[in-house]
C-alpha cells in the first residue's frame, strides 16, 4: 500500500547520537561521565517526488549523518524515516524492498569504487543483487546502456577504477547508483572533490538524468553556489539541527536566519561587486558542549537573553521555515 500523493521521503524528528565516551576503565579511574555526541537532533522535513532538496551546512552540522540515516548506514536513535508513506523501522514493513528504491552517491571518487573490481562488475552489482537481469547478455546490455548514459564508453567496462580521473569515477558511481532503477538518490557532496570544470559536467549530467528518469534527489553540500543551481528547496543545518528550510529562490534572494546570511556573506565575491558584508564571527562550537538556548547565539549579532536561554523551534511552512527568535519577534 503506498501513498500516491504524499511525499516520497519524510523525516520526523530524526535524531542520532554517537557514544564518544572514553574507554570504560578510564571513565572509572578518572570519574569521567559518558559523553554522547548529538550529531543530529530533531530533524524533520519532506522530499516530494521529482524534487531536489538540498541540505547545506559546514563541517559537523550533521548533514552527512542525515544522509546515512536515511539509507540505513546508521541506525536511528530517535524519530522515524518514512519512504513512500511507510515507516522503514516499523516491524511490519518490508524495509529491504523499500530500501531498494533508494541509492547513494558518495563524495570521494577515489574511495567509492572497489579498486580490485572491474568497472562492469561495479556497475552490475546492484543488477545482480536485485536480480534485474535474467541472462548474462541482458546484464551486459544494461551495463553498456548505463555507461553510455553517464557519458562513458562501453569499453570502459573492462578497465579498473585507477585508470580513470576523478570526474569519470564519479560518473561510474552514478552509473552504479542508477543500475538498480532507484527512485530516490541521496547525493553526499558528489562534486566537492572535483575540479570546477569537472563539477560543471557532473552537475549538468545529474540535472539531465533527473529530467529523463524522473529522479528525486537529496543533495548534501557545503557549497551554497552549487546548491543554487540544482536545488528546488534548501535546508540549512547548524550543529545537528535545521535552522532554515525554504524554497531555493526565496532563500537565496532573502535569507532570514542569521547563520544563512552569514554563509551567504562568506561566499567569495566573484563578481567583485565590492558590496558591504557583515564580517564573519567566531567558529563552530564544540558539538560535545553546545551553547545553551539557540546554538548560534555566540556568533549571532542579534542574540538577546531569550536566545541564550530558549532554543527556537523551526516555524513556518515547508517552503519557508526559520528557527530564530529574532525572526519570530520580527526584530530582523
Amino acid at each position, binding site marked *: 500500500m503506498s501513498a500516491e500523493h504524499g511525499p516520497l521521503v519524510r523525516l520526523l524528528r530524526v535524531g542520532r547520537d554517537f557514544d564518544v565516551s572514553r574507554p570504560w576503565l578510564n571513565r572509572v579511574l578518572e570519574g569521567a561521565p559518558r559523553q554522547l555526541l548529538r550529531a543530529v537532533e530533531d530533524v524533520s522535513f519532506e522530499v516530494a517526488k521529482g524534487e531536489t532538496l538540498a541540505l547545506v551546512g559546514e563541517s559537523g552540522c550533521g548533514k552527512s549523518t542525515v544522509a546515512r540515516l536515511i539509507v540505513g548506514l546508521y541506525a536511528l536513535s530517535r524519530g522515524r524515516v518514512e519512504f513512500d508513506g511507510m515507516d522503514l523501522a516499523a516491524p511490519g514493513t518490508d524495509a529491504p524492498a523499500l*530500501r531498494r528504491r533508494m541509492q*547513494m552517491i558518495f563524495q570521494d571518487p577515489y574511495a567509492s569504487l*572497489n579498486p580490485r573490481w572491474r568497472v562492469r562488475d561495479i556497475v552490475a552489482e546492484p543488477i545482480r*543483487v536485485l536480480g534485474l537481469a535474467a541472462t548474462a547478455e541482458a546484464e551486459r546490455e544494461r551495463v553498456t546502456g548505463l555507461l553510455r548514459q553517464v557519458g562513458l564508453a562501453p569499453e570502459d567496462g573492462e578497465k579498473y577504477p585507477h585508470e580513470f580521473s576523478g570526474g569519470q569515477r564519479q560518473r561510474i558511481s552514478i552509473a552504479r547508483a542508477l543500475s538498480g532503477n532507484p527512485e530516490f538518490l541521496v547525493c553526499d557532496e558528489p562534486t566537492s572533490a572535483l575540479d570546477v570544470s569537472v563539477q560543471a559536467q557532473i552537475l549538468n549530467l545529474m540535472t539531465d538524468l533527473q529530467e529523463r528518469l524522473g529522479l528525486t534527489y537529496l543533495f548534501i553540500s557545503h557549497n551554497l553556489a552549487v546548491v543554487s543551481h540544482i536545488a528546488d528547496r534548501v535546508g540549512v543545518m547548524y550543529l545537528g539541527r535545521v535552522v532554515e528550510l525554504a524554497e531555493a529562490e526565496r532563500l537565496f534572494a532573502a535569507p532570514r536566519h542569521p547563520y544563512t546570511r552569514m554563509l551567504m556573506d562568506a561566499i567569495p565575491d566573484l563578481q567583485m561587486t565590492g558590496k558591504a558584508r557583515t564580517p564573519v564571527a567566531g567558529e563552530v562550537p564544540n558539538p560535545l558542549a553546545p551553547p545553551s538556548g539557540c546554538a548560534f547565539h555566540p556568533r549571532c549579532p542579534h542574540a538577546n537573553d531569550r536566545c541564550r536561554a530558549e532554543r527556537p523551534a523551526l516555524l513556518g511552512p515547508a517552503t519557508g521555515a526559520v528557527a530564530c527568535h529574532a525572526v519570530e519577534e520580527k526584530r530582523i
Partner: protein
Amino acid sequence: MAAVTGWLRRAWDHDLAWSFRRSPVTILAALLTLACVGGALFAPWIAPHNPFDSATLNLSDGFTPPAWTAQGSGKYLLGTDDQGRDVLSTIMYGARISLGVGLAAVLFSAFLGVSLGLLSGYLGGRLDAFIMRVADIQLSFPAILIALLIDGVARVALPHALHDALAIYVLVLAIGVSGWVQYARTVRGSTLVEKNKEYVQAARVIGRHPLAIMLRHVLPNVMGPVLVIATIHIATAIITEATLSFLGVGVPPTQPSLGTLVRIGNDFLISGEWWITLFPGLALVVLVLSVNLLGDWLRDALNPKLR
C-alpha cells in the same frame, strides 16, 4: 599464441618484474629457491639413490666421506651416513618433507589467520575483543612451545599405533596454529581501514550480506601484506619443523626431514664424520635464507611508498 606472448611481455614490463630484475641478490635467491624446490619436488626421479629402499643399501658403504676427499667415491657425492644412505639423496628427500610441512603449515596458518582477522575487523564488538585477547595470550608464549604443546596433547590423545601415520598432520596443525596471529592482526588492521571506505558503504546500501561484502569486497584489498608475511613465514615454518624434528618430536624417523638429518648426524660429529650433519644443515640454511631474501624483496617491491 599471440595472446600468450602479449601476456608475457606485459608481465615482463610489470613493475614487480622490473624491480626483480634490478636486484642481483633477489635473482640469486630465486634461483637457489628454485633449485631447492626443484630438487625436492623431483627427488624420486633425479636423486642418485633411494635412501629409503633398504634393498639398495649397502652397510659396508657406510661412513663414506664426500667425493672430493681421499677416501670418498664418485658414487656418493656428499658421502654416506652410518647406514650407507647417500647423504645427497637423503637431503633431497628430506627437503621434500621440510618444504611440504612448511608450505602446508603456512597455508593452514594463513587461512586461519586471515579468516579470523577479517571477521574480527569487520564485525567488531565482542567477537573482535575475544579473538584479539586470544591472540594476545598466544603471543605471550613462544611459538615452539605452542607447537610442542599441541604435539604433546596429540601424542596423549591419539592411539599409539596412529602416531607415526598422523605425525605429519599433527605437525602441520601445530606449526599452523602457532603462527596465525600475525596474519590475523595485519588483516584486522587493513579490514578496519577498508571497512570505512565508501565502496564498502556503497555495497551496504546496495543491500549485500555482510559475508559477501567481507569476501568479495574487503578480502581482495587486504591480501597484499598477507603474501609477504606468508613468504617469510615459510622460512620460519621450516625452521620450526626442523627444530621440532631435531628435538625428536617432529616427523617420524621413517620420514626424516632436514631437521631429523641434522639430529642424526649430530651423534657422529664427535667421532669425526662431519659430513653427515653439515650438509643437511647447510641445505637448511640455504633454503631458509633464499626464501627469506625473496620475502624481503617482495615486501619492498609491493610497498607503494617505496616505488
